[in-house]
């Protein structure tokens, strides 16, 4: 058991219990770096609030967000309506609170869709290579050749408006980035010795792919997902501006900015309030994305 033979050696074993760093769980280290910058904490807090609001929207809204009162339309902010009312006399604050849910749904679902499909394709293309990779990558190139908003607009026009279709069209337009990033990651990870090691110990391709390649490719993708959540929320606003919004009376922040900006002169708060929310959330996702990037993999700086 001992590898040293000098009798006067202070320790019988060379490496027992003697660690380079004190034992910190990787998530502890992650948290320490992640929360090391104040702006990141700011972003994380915003997102936490956002999620909290989305979950508790039913209880914390002062009014029914769909309850209209035409006689009380376009009222400026008051103690009864902190952010005033919109053209149909609905409480803006309540709608913003409910909009959190929709906006989050747009972000999470469209990005989730894109990430799921994109990562699967990217994994296959990167790991299998050959004609499958060529096929996938050419299709991705083709999608990449069409600007995302243009693509989303065209898909949106094909599918029609409404929450689900907005999610689908945004999702599809986001896919190419995931495929590319995932494939790049897989190709890089595939070069690693530990993938060779996996082959040498006799793992099957599937096992290697799922147990070793996939987990090690995730860091930049998690960052991309975070950044894209903001992108999707803001893109929803753009889509509804050109005419592909969610169905009324639903409220998403993007649509609310678009609906409200017609009253920019008389009731600026109608577009400012949701616009501010969009800005804050996108900012928060960006900050958290940056923080994640630093925490998950500092080498990623400059790749996203």
């Amino acid at each position: 058991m001992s590898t040293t033979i000098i009798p006067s050696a202070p320790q019988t074993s060379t490496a027992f219990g003697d660690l380079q760093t004190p034992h910190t769980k990787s998530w502890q280290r992650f948290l320490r770096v992640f929360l090391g910058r104040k702006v990141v904490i700011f972003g994380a807090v915003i997102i936490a609030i956002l999620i909290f609001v989305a979950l508790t929207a039913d209880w914390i809204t002062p009014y029914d967000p769909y309850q209209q009162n035409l006689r009380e339309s376009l009222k400026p902010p008051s103690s009864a309506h902190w952010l005033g009312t919109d053209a149909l006399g609905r409480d803006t604050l309540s709608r913003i609170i409910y909009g959190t849910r929709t906006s989050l749904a747009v972000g999470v679902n469209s990005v989730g869709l894109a990430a799921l499909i994109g990562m699967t394709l990217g994994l296959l293309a990167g790991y299998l290579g050959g004609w499958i990779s060529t096929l996938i990558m050419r299709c991705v190139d083709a999608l990449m050749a069409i600007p995302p908003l243009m693509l989303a607009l065209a898909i949106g026009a094909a599918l029609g408006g409404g929450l689900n279709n907005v999610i689908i069209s945004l999702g599809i337009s986001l896919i190419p980035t995931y495929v590319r990033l995932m494939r790049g990651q897989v190709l890089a990870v595939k070069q690693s010795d530990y993938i060779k090691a996996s082959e040498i110990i006799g793992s099957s391709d599937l096992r290697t792919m799922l147990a070793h390649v996939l987990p090690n490719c995730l860091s930049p993708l998690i960052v991309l997902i975070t950044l894209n959540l903001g992108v999707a929320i803001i893109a929803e606003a753009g889509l509804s501006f050109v005419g592909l919004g969610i169905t009324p009376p639903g409220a998403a922040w993007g649509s609310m900015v678009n609906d409200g900006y017609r009253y920019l002169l008389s009731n600026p708060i109608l577009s400012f309030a949701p616009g501010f929310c969009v800005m804050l959330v996108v900012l928060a996702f960006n900050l958290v994305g940056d923080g994640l990037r630093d925490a998950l993999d500092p080498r990623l700086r400059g790749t996203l």
Partner: protein
Amino acid sequence: MNRSPWLVALVVSLFLVLIAVACAPTPTATPPPPTAVPPAATKAPVAPSAPAPTTAPAATAVSATKAPEPTKAPEPTKAPAPTVAPTAAVKAPTQGGVLKISTVPDADILGYPPTMTKLNDFNFAVTSLETLITFDETGAPVPNLASEWKVDVANKTITLALQKGVKFHDGSDFNAKVAKWNLDGIRTSKRTELAAVSSIDVVDDNTIRLNLSKYDSSLLITLAGPVGLMISQAAFEKNGGAAWSEKNPVGTGPFKLVSWQRDVKQVYARFADYRQKGKPYLDGVEWVIIADPLVRLASFKAGESQVTQNIEPKDAKALEADTKYRIATLASALYGLAPDGGNANSPFAKLAVRQAVETAIDKQAICDSLGYGYWKPLYQAAAPGSWAENTKVVGNKYNVTKAKQLLTEAGYPTGFKTTIYTPNSPQIIVDMLTAVQGYLKVVGIDAKIEAMEQVRYGDVYAGKGWQDGLAMAPMGLSPNEIGLLNRVFLPGSVLLPNALRPPAFQQKLAEIGAAADNDAKQKLTWDLQKIGTDDNAMMIWIHSNVGVTAMQIKVHNDGFNKTIGVPWTPAETWMDK
């Protein structure tokens, strides 16, 4: 060697340029908004002036005086009520200036009536083309290119005498032959408007006669619309036909098209050989297409245009309060929802349900809050206050209790689920329907709004129709009030295919078409209203929409939004210097 100082210098200079651009005084730095210099800059740019102090602001929207006409004005068959505005010292029109009008959407077709399908196109077309007949401010037909006409109900003919010595923009003559060619073009294009005309005779060089297969009281009015626009046959034939003519209007109108950049602008110049000497007063007209309502309004307020169309009611209200502007409003369309009639399983198959739905909606509140009072609640297929309105129709007035009761009677005490199909623009219509949705919810009807892009809505409106629920049915008003009802509800129509079409209603429509005189027509129309609303509740009416046009007060005699069927009067329009 060092590119970076250079880079920084460039950035700095770029910023400087930006700031300079932003801060630089506009070329004409007079306090009011500078008008952009018209491109046809043969003359000095029109210096913008402060509001002419001599002109008192017009009190009402329709206050402009009718300019004295230098040429003979043949008296129409029916004397127009002289509604000369009480105020306004009559000023002599001033010559010159280019009128810029901002609007949306652009025309599809400017110069070929047979394919001109949208009312919107007519808006632009009258700038350079003229119709045979037009309307005065009361809506009565008055001469235009036809100097007079004779209707022979018994023999089923209409004889039109044409103005003499009229030239097209290309120099060719306007005469009976050309007029017949124009109308024949419409007839062979599968359009339905002239379906009643069996043939057209050239009586002499300045007279044509329309021979009818059956008498149609709306025919004269039709000739005041797109169908009656006259274009140069010579130019059409010389330049290769319809495709060219569609984009190149060559008419007898006061302005000639200089250039048309689709969705951007149309530029017109004064036609020197216009048939009315001394007119037009303006040197040119420019239509500027600005899609976004807010930007359009801002552009107008910044003085980039003198007239702007399709103003939203809320903005109209604000402009109305401003002495620099004048606004003109006119009921333009009847907005209602068409229930699916063909489907026996649909709740809407029951009269009580249809009545309940309409009763549940507080139309007045909608008109007040979204329409700012410009909109009027609608209870039958006629603009409130028009001759077609049957004041005896009870209608379905707002009454939540009654609505609930009706629903219970119909077997839906807890309401039902349904869908409202609508185009997704303009936004205000979606807002209006959202309000409707809210009211329906109160009585338990859970309506989902399916807001579609225009082209997709085309399938609902004129194609496959809709499976269940209500479809938004904007019925543009025409001079004879029921023009659109004709198109929708007569047999053979492809519009609103699922709408209810009670036979009695269709019968009545046909009778109205054959009515010999206006009194008979009015009486029949009143019957029609009763059948449509009280007997059947075949449409769920919401409001009568208004078109709003705003202009600077220095614009006179423009004729915008004065009469249904006359988009504006370009020949009469003039501006203060």
